[in-house]
């Protein structure tokens, strides 16, 4: 057992483990914020908003979010290096596995949300 501060930084650990969910959160923010604002402007007449533009924005943001998530899944060690996340050997499989699973779930969330753009009118209301 060693004492002393020679431990990986908690910031690195959080950034590495939560990289996938953070991308998912950013994706939701970038989908919902601009889409709802653009639709609100279109309805209030502040600006003319093309439905195609809104759909394209949703798909672009989804593609943009999916790429890093796939990289997280395939190259977790590279991401660990990027975030300077280093742990003892016995901790390594745990951290890698948690990070990859979280990225996989996040990818599922991103694709599910983004797929809606293929199915629905971008600004139609249900009532």
């Amino acid at each position, binding site marked *: 057992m060693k004492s002393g*501060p020679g431990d990986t930084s908690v910031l690195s650990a959080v950034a590495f483990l939560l990289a996938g969910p953070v991308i998912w959160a950013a994706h939701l923010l970038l989908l919902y914020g601009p889409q709802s604002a653009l639709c609100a402007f279109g309805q209030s007449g502040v600006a003319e908003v093309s439905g195609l533009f809104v759909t394209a924005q949703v798909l672009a943001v989804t593609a943009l979010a999916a790429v890093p998530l796939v990289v997280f899944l395939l190259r977790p060690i590279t991401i660990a290096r990027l975030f300077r996340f280093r742990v003892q050997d016995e901790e390594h499989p745990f951290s890698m596995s948690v990070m990859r699973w979280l990225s996989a779930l996040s990818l599922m969330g991103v694709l599910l949300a983004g797929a809606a753009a293929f199915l629905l009118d971008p600004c139609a209301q249900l009532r």
Partner: protein
Amino acid sequence: MTDQVIVQLPNSTPRPARELEDLERVWATPKGWRIVTAVNNTVVGLIYIGVAFLFFLMAGVLAILMRTQLAVSGNDFIGQELYNQMFTMHGTTMMFLFAVPAVEALGVMLLPQMLAARDLPFPRLSAYAIWAYVIGGLVFFTTIFYDLAPAGGWFMYPPLTLKEFSPADNADFWLLGIGFIEISAIAGAVEIVVGTLRTRPPGMSLSKMPIFAWSMLIFAAMIMFAFPAVILATMMLEIERSFGWPFFTAALGGDALLWQHLFWFFGHPEVYIIFLPAAGLVSMIVPTMAQTPLVGYRLIVVALIATGFFSFGLWVHHMFTTGIPALSLAFFSAASAAVAVPSGIQVFSWIATMAAGRRRFRITTASLFVLGFLFIFTLGGLTGVMVAMVPFDYQVHDTYFVVAHFHYVLVGGMVFPLFATFYHWMPLFSRRMLSERLGRWVFWLMFLGFNIAFFPMHLTGLLGMPRRVWTYPAELGWDTLNLVSTAGSYILGAGILLFVIDLFRTVRPGPKPENPWGAGTLEWLPSDVYATRSIPLVTSREPLWDQENLVEDVQAGRWFLPGAPTGGRETIVTSPVEARPQYIIQMPGPGWSPLLAAMFTAACFLLLTVKLVMIAAVCGVLAIVFCLVWTWSLDPGPAKGSVDIGGGMKLPTYVTGPTSHSWWAMVVLMFVAGSLYLSYVFSYLFLWTVSPDVWAPAGAPQLPSPGWPALSALLLVCGSAAIMAARRLLPSPGNLGTAAAAAILVALLCMSGALAIELLGHWRTGLQPSDSAYGAMVYMASVLFGQVAAALVIMGLFTAARLLVRRLDREWRVTFDNLALLYHYAVFQSLFGLALVHGYPRLVA
């Protein structure tokens, strides 16, 4: 601190007799009526859980009265107004006064035991949070007896709750009372985050942490980010009710939907805030009863983190019928479906663990409650997926189907695991265990009663019965189903009553039976008021199963910290990821100040509700005074040097900067403040999107000229520079810090000046906060700025006072580090606020 390698047991035996005497003396619980000054987690945790359970019983009585009213059509057992107050108090009490406090209480009680820590790192903060909750909660609940209880539903939607439609003080009790209790919950969350990450035993890395500790860590992190949204919402609604700032009034550019966004950004994660710790408890009980390690530990950790994260992306699924565009709804519908996956992972993991057991899954009362939880929660989850689908939600929104769904989720997901916990962990706190024979009666009455009460509600909902109606006409055909539901509620109540009888009959504080279930985790080590005799090195997730002679070695004091080397209360602080010992934390003992501070804080909030402003202000000042009295002794300084914790390992008793637990607590608080501010930014942009016509420059007076925000920003930057100068001017040990104190005072003046200039600039343009939603949002930025500035002024004067009495210097400096951290954060937040309020309208103009 140098790296030291410990080979096996660090201490030899027999230990000096004085060691144990020291531990008992230092950790002694105050006797008699002085028990209220206790801060030990075992004492305050028991008070906490006891009061939370009392609220559960009281809110349960309200539920039974409401069910009695609904048993037959056209009933007049309870009047409409009282019924409105009852369902509001039932929901509010269950969510705010029972569910969150109960799981927080379990964290306070069980976490230190599971982590073999002597206590959580901020025992007085725990005591303060608990007493504030007890006093504030009890006074809040009594409003139901005086016709003063809120009646707007537990979510208090405006415009119903605006002054125009709810003119009496009832809604204010909710806004100020609950806002205050949320602050208490945040204080508990700070304790749990820092406690879980920093007071684990040596060797208990993240991958060896008990699942309950993981779930409490995520629970507390979720509180940090979810609760600020509703705190901001309650502030804004109370300000609108009291001063007429129109955040939610459509005619002046406000929007009632803003409340819904903020409330549900808190309200949906709240469901998981309640569920995740309960799931953590189940993940501890199932392996014990199956006598095998949890199947899929990693996946459970993944599921907990993912659920915590995804739960923040679901808030709009409570707003499907508000007219938001269909595509937006689809994003949240997708997130609602996605969150079912991690929940499913946990359910399958528990079933797999039961199947993989070394022997047949042991059926105890706790196991029965776990099985009942699995059945009920899974049904609730399935109806959750149904209401996550927009077309179905349109049909059942605001009907009894939704009432059935969330009771299946919350009672199944939290109450049943809580009862399992009572039966499973009671031996830690009582020398007699709860009766297994009566326990089975309790379970079956509760299980059958619950399903008889709530399953028919799915049908009454599908038949169109709306929520919150106090009665209904006979011809609608809802009578039989309602009567069955009422009968079920009585059976459920009988089960809970039987539990209470058993509780009073058998539970007696005292030495516990030794590990009656054969569990593998550290809370079952022999313990006393000082927790375990020594703190072990942990090498597996179930150390009691895997580490030979662990119980004997810990009890004999062969592991770390077998005594009280500093002569006071202390525990080991370890690194957050790999749990390497870093230093010894010195903790305060019993005292009156947390109790008195809590009493006066509660009095301040409650008196504001009834508009006794002067007396409330006096109470507020007294609360601050007692907080300062308590914090004065919290920074003990480096005088004790390093101490030997065993095996020649010497650890310092004082550290500063990012290693210090106090620095961590301040960072957690900054996250809370940041989250509150982000909620404000969202509100600003949301209202601008809704009503750009009331925004400057076209719809409101011209913005102040750029010189005003520039001067304000300059003062803020100068303040930061003054704090940096104060750091350099800190005296050497034993010297007076007049120069550093002066620099701090300059920084405080800069901060106050920046706020005054910001306010004056807007005031001179003729903009009034009550003019429009724009005016309200502009001045709200200054309210938030002022809040942080007020905290900094108090902290700054406190720090300066310590400098002037030689209790702060270059080495003894935790207080200063915290001030500096918060100051720089406040400057960053305020500069951002200036850019938003002055830059954004110009940008979009």
